[in-house]
């Protein structure tokens, strides 16, 4: 079964185009200065439509995770992490941690992470995170 992938909409296209280009993009409210995720055309805090898209640093820390031993049918057969990471800019994001063993020993809370992109199709690259290098 092929991996179930998002289909970008006008509200989320900037995010997925960024991923395709290897850039994690967030939005920020001009009125209250808060960064937010998931994408939407108005600020979830104050409702302002004065929002901008900007490139995030791609740096994050591991907030929480579980190891999913029996993956969704489209996600292969091996146990994998489902993680919540805190982006350097503030918002949290659900993702998978890659580039390290999928074990509690390798997945330490608060460990520094960096974004990496899994090219899943010509249109969609999924933002995953790996242990920060250096």
């Amino acid at each position, binding site marked *: 079964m092929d991996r179930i992938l998002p289909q970008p909409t006008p509200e989320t296209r900037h995010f997925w185009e960024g991923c395709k280009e290897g850039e994690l993009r967030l939005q920020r409210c001009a009125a209250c200065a808060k960064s937010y995720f998931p994408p939407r055309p108005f600020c979830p805090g104050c409702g302002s439509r004065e929002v901008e898209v900007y490139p995030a640093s791609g740096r994050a820390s591991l907030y929480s995770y579980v190891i999913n031993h029996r993956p969704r049918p489209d996600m292969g057969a091996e146990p994998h992490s489902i993680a919540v990471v*805190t982006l350097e800019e503030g918002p949290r994001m659900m993702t998978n941690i890659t580039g390290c063993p999928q074990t509690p020993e390798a997945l330490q809370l608060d460990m520094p992470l960096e974004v990496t992109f899994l090219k899943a199709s010509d249109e969609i690259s*999924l933002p995953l995170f790996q242990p920060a290098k250096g």
Partner: protein
Amino acid sequence: MASGIKDKVAVIGMGCSKFGERWDAGPDELMVEAYLEAMADAGIEPTQLDAAWFSTHVDEFGTGKGGTPLSIALRLPNIAVTRVENFCASGSEAFRGAVYAVAAGAADIALAVGVEKLKDTGYGGLPVANAGTLSPQVAPNGSAPGNFAQLASAYRSKHGVSREDLKRAIAHVSVKSHANGAKNRKAHLQKPVTEEQVLNAPMIAEPLGLFDCCGVSDGAAAAIVTTPEIARSLGKHDLVMVKALQLSVSNGYESQFNAWDGSYFHTARIAAKKAYREAGVEDPRRQISMMEVHDCFSITELVTMEDLFISAEGQGWRDVLDGFYDADGGVPCQIDGGLKCFGHPIGASGLRMLYEMYLQLQGRAGERQLADPVLGMTHNLGGSPASNVCSVAIVGREGA
């Protein structure tokens, strides 16, 4: 503040099909099975029904997204039929619609029917959405067990509970539900399990093993409601009354600006507080006689004991291990087996929970019967911990 629903509406008939892998029946037959039981129980004719609410979530059948699949299956007398859907809490929505119609005086007698035929999808869990809406746009990484397993990580971290202690507590949640389900001939799963079996079962999403996850089922359930005056004119006595109906829906608080720690259900706490106020319940741990909660996963049930203010925060796992929620405990929970064993046909589940409360309050629950219950609570959740709808209902005896 609104005057609330307390004691304005009585339940005079309920029915529930056998849940499970119902290869022998289509959705129409499941609805008929639940409906005929409810009508015989109420002792009324179809012409006495003024309006109906119909809940189904995942699958479309018959003529699709409308009232006709119910009306045609039951050959209702051309009355109003409203189809409702609110994730796994859809069945509670059908009940809410019917109860509000009676309370408003728009209907003398109203019907609620929920149904789901999930096993035909050929897939063990729930179908995964793949386009258009927010969740598949921004969270293509998870799974239902994975999302709910995160409650366990957060709960352990917040309350300093060891993996072994929490694993034993959630195992006991399932052992208890299987023991109860073994006494229910309508349940999908009717075999008891041991703690050892649960602890050693294959891992699904750490720390949730196979027996920490409810399955999905085929089934239907139905309720008939009216005013207490009409109920008495029909010769009914010892009425089962609606005491509270509340619904709280996530607004993004849990998933934005990091205000929520992931260890509990924000909506459940709000719905529970409102329900207790509506029903006049001041001390739920003592006043609530029994509960059916949304145990899609064992950890969901455990944290829900705290979100409903039955257990103190951080102490729910101890109450579970102490047997407080067992059939012979302080507040028996999932006395019919719960989603875990009775089964989870999505559109029917909220009504199935009420069915058990109704039977118990009338002393008709057979070998599962509890001693003298007065107030029963149902908690029906739809969605994921970070984004959900949470319905809390309380039913009870007249005068309670």
